């Protein structure tokens, strides 16, 4: 059914009415009777031994109810914050996971690491109490610089050389051989700058405990409440899983940073139990800068071997990735299985070898941030490809076309462990080239020059692996959890429907998209479908939202459950229509007997299921509610072509993006308007990385970019008018044919911008972010 609200329609988002009018319910909006407030005491030192902590003055203050240190949590058996993905080194050894107590016990290892928590009757009293906590530290010189962290002064007793693991993927010998016989080698040393996520809503938690039942409830800003519950129950030992309900209500953005289980919600829910009182904590923006997991932060040496005609014959990549001070929940997987596996890009490069050394530094933990590993991979591949084209005097579009995996090559097995199911890379590139007017670029460049500006154009043909993930593949590669999704489609007596999903929407618009799918399939009004998410008490299970997985995995589970509802309904309808299942058609919400005018509507069937007067009770249970779990067969592979044009002011070094085209293949699209919105947001983040954003620590380990005075968040006026379009090759292995769109913008755009900028300046590389002074210096030849 194609309707105004069905699959493929640009339905306005249901959730926007409450978001835009300030009627959302975020964690900080939740208040409980007798609620206390928590404030964390954070390290000012990048690295120090804790000699002693004195909370007595804090406890003596008016309104202060409790002050806890890491030792108090440890004494109660509260465990370390775990990392959920085991990565093995080249030599087969396990990665080294240093102890990560939620609240520091004997050492602090980054500025902002909590070492005490004060709980008080009011927020003001909690702040005053936190200031009254005193501690005796023995400061130790910090390890900050990523380039020299390996082998620098050892941070963790358990981690020699500060190396978490030294991982490899691909065929080293074949790759070396390809390089040995290649006509040309292009090499680049590139840095993928550290980013700080900056969700609009800072992290927050409200912990509750009911002594009479022993039940805990945690409201928290999570992208995956079931996973938070699992970690808090199984690893951190807060409570049994069945005794802990985790609710992630409206959440104002995550971008990955709210996947992880952090110190604060752990300590809050634990303390709620201790005090048998509700406790609220909400990060200040400054705390977000210091203590949210940061993103990216790689240093890479990358080489591409080519034949004289431009054919790629080998790719060799060596990366050092920053883990920060501790391993955050999925940190280990980001620069390995979400990075190395993507280095084939859209190309037939036959031999690829990648080594990744992940190291610890005295900085905030680094973990998944929108795109997670795939932006870094795309940046490496697409910068190399563009540079190679320039070195060989080839057109950047031609060299890509020459090397593209062709439509007839699918399924295509890459040398780095993935099997791409489908794609048509030239289709996206062709459309992007048309939309940007590539043929007229020379004229635009000339007119820019006439105005005293330098103009450049840059391409980026990215691929990503989304829809995390086939559980058996992920678990065999070290994942500690399955990555399927669950759904329940619960039909009410009157035929309206509640859809329970284990995915979580924190800006993605699931309440709209998922409702479109179900209303379309059941032929009932869009308004009659409610999507319920973010509550372990209401949906069975789920792995949450990240890795562009919600539609392709969660949506597929919903389709599966909806199909079960239809199957059962058809049986009921057949009974009611005195026909047989085989002879009953279902279309646009109506069951009808083939070749007859007898029919019955879906709500009538639902009614009969709950008021089973005329109902096959001997064959079927009453009621109409079905559940499904869906485990994907493969990853999905969204891909596309981004082309960027920049103008540079040669006097100031200021870069302006004057043209940006993104043509993406996300497979089938449920809601084009939501997709465009996701792409716009992603582009802003990718462009932000290229030109604006940078998480900077000074040499001593203090965070320099700890507020918006210094951390440059992209703003609307930094962005051009994007031209976004799509091509479609449906995913071959999920029922929606969808591939996912949440991260593509951030994955593809960065390289396009930097390729355009280096083209404008006629230089090989400019470090990111390409701030005006950086560009000015690049023009000065520095």
């Amino acid at each position: 059914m194609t309707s105004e609200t069905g699959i493929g329609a640009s339905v306005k988002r249901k959730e926007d009415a409450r978001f835009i009018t300030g009627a959302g319910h975020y964690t900080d909006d939740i208040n409980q009777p007798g609620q206390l407030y928590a404030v964390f005491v954070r390290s000012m030192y990048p690295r120090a031994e804790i000699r002693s902590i004195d909370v007595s003055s804090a406890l003596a203050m008016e309104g202060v109810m409790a002050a806890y240190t890491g030792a108090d949590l440890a004494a109660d058996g509260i465990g370390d914050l775990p990392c959920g993905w085991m990565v093995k080194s080249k030599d087969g050894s396990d990665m080294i996971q240093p102890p990560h107590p939620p609240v520091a016990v004997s050492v602090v290892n980054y500025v902002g690491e909590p070492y005490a928590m004060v709980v008080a009757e009011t927020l003001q009293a909690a702040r005053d109490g936190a200031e009254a906590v005193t501690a005796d530290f023995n400061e130790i010189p910090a390890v900050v610089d990523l380039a020299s962290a390996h082998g620098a002064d050892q941070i963790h007793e358990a981690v020699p050389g500060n190396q978490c693991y030294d991982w490899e993927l691909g065929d080293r010998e074949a790759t070396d051989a390809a390089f040995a016989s290649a006509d040309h080698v292009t090499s680049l040393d590139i840095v993928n700058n550290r980013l700080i996520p900056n969700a609009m809503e800072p992290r927050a938690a409200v912990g509750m405990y009911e002594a009479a039942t022993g039940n805990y409830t945690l409201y928290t800003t999570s992208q995956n409440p079931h996973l938070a519950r699992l970690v808090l129950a199984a690893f951190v030992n807060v409570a049994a899983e069945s005794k802990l309900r985790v609710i992630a209500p409206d959440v104002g953005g995550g971008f990955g940073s709210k996947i992880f289980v952090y110190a604060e919600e752990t300590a809050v829910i634990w303390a709620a139990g201790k005090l048998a009182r509700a406790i609220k904590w909400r990060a200040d923006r400054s705390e977000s800068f210091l203590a949210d997991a940061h993103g990216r932060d790689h240093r890479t040496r990358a080489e591409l071997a080519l034949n004289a005609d431009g054919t790629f014959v080998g790719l060799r990549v060596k990366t050092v990735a920053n883990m920060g001070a501790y391993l955050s929940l999925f940190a280990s997987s980001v620069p390995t299985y979400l990075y190395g596996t993507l280095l084939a890009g859209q190309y037939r490069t036959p031999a690829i070898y990648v080594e990744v050394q992940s190291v610890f530094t005295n900085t905030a933990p680094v973990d998944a941030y929108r795109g997670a590993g795939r932006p870094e991979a795309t940046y490496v591949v697409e910068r190399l490809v563009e540079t190679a084209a320039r070195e060989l005097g080839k057109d950047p579009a031609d060299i890509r076309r020459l090397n593209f995996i062709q439509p007839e090559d699918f399924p295509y097995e890459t040398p780095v462990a993935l099997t791409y199911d489908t794609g048509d890379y030239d289709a996206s590139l062709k459309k992007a080239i048309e939309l940007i007017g590539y043929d007229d670029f020379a004229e635009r460049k000339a007119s820019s020059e006439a105005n005293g500006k330098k103009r450049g154009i840059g391409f980026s043909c990215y691929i990503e692996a989304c829809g995390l993930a086939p559980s058996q593949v992920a678990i065999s590669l070290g994942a500690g959890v399955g990555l399927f999704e669950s759904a329940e489609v619960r039909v009410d007596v009157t035929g309206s429907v509640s859809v329970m999903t284990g995915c979580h929407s924190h800006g993605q618009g699931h309440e709209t998209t998922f409702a479109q799918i179900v209303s379309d399939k059941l032929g009932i009004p869009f308004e009659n479908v409610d999507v319920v998410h973010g509550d372990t008490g209401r949906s069975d299970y789920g792995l949450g939202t990240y890795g562009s997985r919600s539609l392709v995995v969660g949506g597929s589970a919903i389709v599966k459950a909806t199909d079960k509802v239809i199957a059962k309904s058809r049986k009921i309808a057949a009974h009611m229509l005195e026909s047989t299942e085989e002879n009953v058609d279902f279309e646009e919400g109506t069951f009808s007997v083939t070749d007859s005018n007898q029919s019955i509507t879906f709500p009538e069937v639902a009614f009969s299921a709950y008021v089973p007067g005329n109902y096959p009770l001997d064959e079927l249970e009453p009621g109409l509610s079905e559940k499904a779990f869906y485990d994907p067969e493969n990853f999905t592979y969204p891909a596309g072509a981004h082309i960027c044009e920049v103008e540079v002011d040669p006097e100031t070094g200021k870069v302006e993006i004057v043209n940006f085209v993104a043509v993406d293949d996300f497979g089938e699209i449920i809601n084009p308007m939501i997709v465009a919105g996701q792409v716009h947001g992603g582009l802003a983040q990718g462009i932000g990385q290229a030109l604006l954003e940078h998480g900077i620590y000074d040499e001593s380990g203090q965070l320099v970019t700890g507020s918006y005075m210094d951390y440059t968040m992209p703003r609307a006026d930094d962005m051009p008018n994007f031209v976004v379009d799509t091509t479609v090759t449906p995913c071959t292995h999920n029922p929606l044919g969808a591939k996912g769109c949440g991260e593509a913008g951030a994955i593809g755009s960065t390289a396009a911008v930097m390729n355009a900028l280096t083209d404008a300046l006629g230089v090989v590389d400019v470090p990111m972010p390409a701030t005006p002074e950086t560009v000015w210096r690049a023009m000065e030849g520095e």
Partner: protein
Amino acid sequence: MYRFNYHKPDDMAAAQQMMADAEDGVYLSGGMTLIPTLKARLASPTDVIDLSGLALSGIELADDSLTIGALTLHSEVAAGNEILSLSNLALAIGDAQVRNRGTIGGSIANSDPGADYPAAVVALGATINTTAGAIDADDYFQGLFETALKPGAIVTSVTFPLPGRAAYEKFPNPASRYAVVGVMVAETNGDVRVGVTGAGPCAYRQRNFEQALADNFSVAALDGLEVDYTEFNSDIHASAEYRGHLVGVMARRAVAQII
């Protein structure tokens, strides 16, 4: 925030008395600088004396000058007046919310090194009127967040002579949008002045530019002129050297606007 006593006097004398009586008092105008400082617990005054009840708002035109009351909002100056370059400058401050709260008196009393108004104060040769007397622009800005404003004195208004021609060019900090470098070039009664903000610890006059322009008011007159950047600010957004370079670029662009 820490606890403080809040006062809202309705006349100048009362305000000054409250300040005199306070152990550690501070005036509040738009609060765009003060409130974030208090919220971050970076300041702990005992008393906050809100000036918004005083009649210090409004723009008055005289024969050869414009007097802007201390409580006049940036948005009110931006809305247009006889000095176009000043409206343009005000329009380039922060964002709409900031312009609808921030005041010229607060900006000038605070003297942030990246604030925009100080460039105009210096370039137009303005007079800062305070409860402790009038202060000439050339004497007012003394260092990083340091001015000639007497302790406890209130800025009441700023008087700007009407220039023959004047223009302001700003290179905004990409993060904060304050001025990395802002330059106002003005010619008033045949006198050329170049006011620079953002570059150094406080606003100052670029004298060699002024001389060159007095001889020959043209963009080319500034070519190759040195800017001594040894005392300039340096941060992650702009080194002292780059700021020095930008002073020349912004000055040339300002001149180009008005020849």
